[in-house]
């Protein structure tokens, strides 16, 4: 594995760790952005350029901003009195560790069956992706459209101010 991989991987993992461990919520959101960037770079390394840029566009450009907005709207920047970690947080840690060990073990165990040698990098053009979207994956495309519409409306409704009195 090349050195680039390790740097990028470190970036991603570091950002993730920071996102989870930092006290200030805004710092967490920003660290999340860095994690997203790292993952986008990992996509690019895997010759999935479209996916990488889509990642940057959507995640960093929309989701991260959304998270920041949410933090700002819920006064998340204030540090809570009892600390940032919930009750019984070691349990959560243990479970996460168990999950990681499970997955790692699975990966390591399957060394035999995984393909060894890298296949040559595929060339993926946007045309191909477009064709695939309209052709083979037209149904998921439409459904995603519906889903996005529904999410849009739903989010608006959920977060809307209630009009009744007493609020």
């Amino acid at each position, binding site marked *: *594995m090349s050195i680039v*991989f390790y740097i990028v*991987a470190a970036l*991603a*993992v570091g950002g993730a*760790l920071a*996102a*989870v461990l930092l006290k200030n*919520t805004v710092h967490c*959101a920003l660290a*999340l952005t860095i994690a997203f960037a790292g*993952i986008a770079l*990992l996509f690019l390394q*895997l010759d*999935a350029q*479209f*996916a990488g840029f*889509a*990642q940057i566009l*959507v*995640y960093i450009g*929309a*989701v991260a901003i959304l*998270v920041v907005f*949410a*933090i700002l709207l*819920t006064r998340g920047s204030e540090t*809570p009195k*009892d*600390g*940032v*970690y*919930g009750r019984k*947080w070691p*349990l*959560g*840690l243990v479970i*996460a560790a168990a*999950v*990681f060990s499970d*997955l*790692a073990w699975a*990966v390591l165990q399957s*060394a035999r069956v*995984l*393909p060894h040698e*890298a296949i040559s990098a*595929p060339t*993926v053009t946007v045309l191909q*992706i477009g064709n*695939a*979207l309209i052709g083979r*994956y037209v149904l998921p495309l439409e459904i*995603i459209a519906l*889903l996005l519409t529904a*999410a849009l409306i*739903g*989010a608006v409704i*959920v*977060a809307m101010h209630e009009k009744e009195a007493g609020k």
Partner: protein
Amino acid sequence: MTPLMSYLLVAALLFAIGLAGALTRRNAILVLIGIELMLNAANLNLIAFWRYGPHPESLTGMMFAIFSIAVAAAEAAVGLGLVISIHRHARTTDLDAINRMKG
């Protein structure tokens, strides 16, 4: 250690970190952040398998990842809307305090 395996391990690590964050942090928004990390880890897994699996020209993995990104975005929007709504109601985003659904 094939390349694939290293990517998979990174993805596993990211997943575990995201899970840890979702399970341990008090703020509801940070739970959502953890969930986004988990989703990203899954996307990484998909792209890695696409790249090193058979038939990468059929674009299956990439499509899957792209749709996953779309869904994740929608889900983040709705989820954060919910958090804002709950904050409006309970004046807090502390998950330990929100136990109205207690059985």
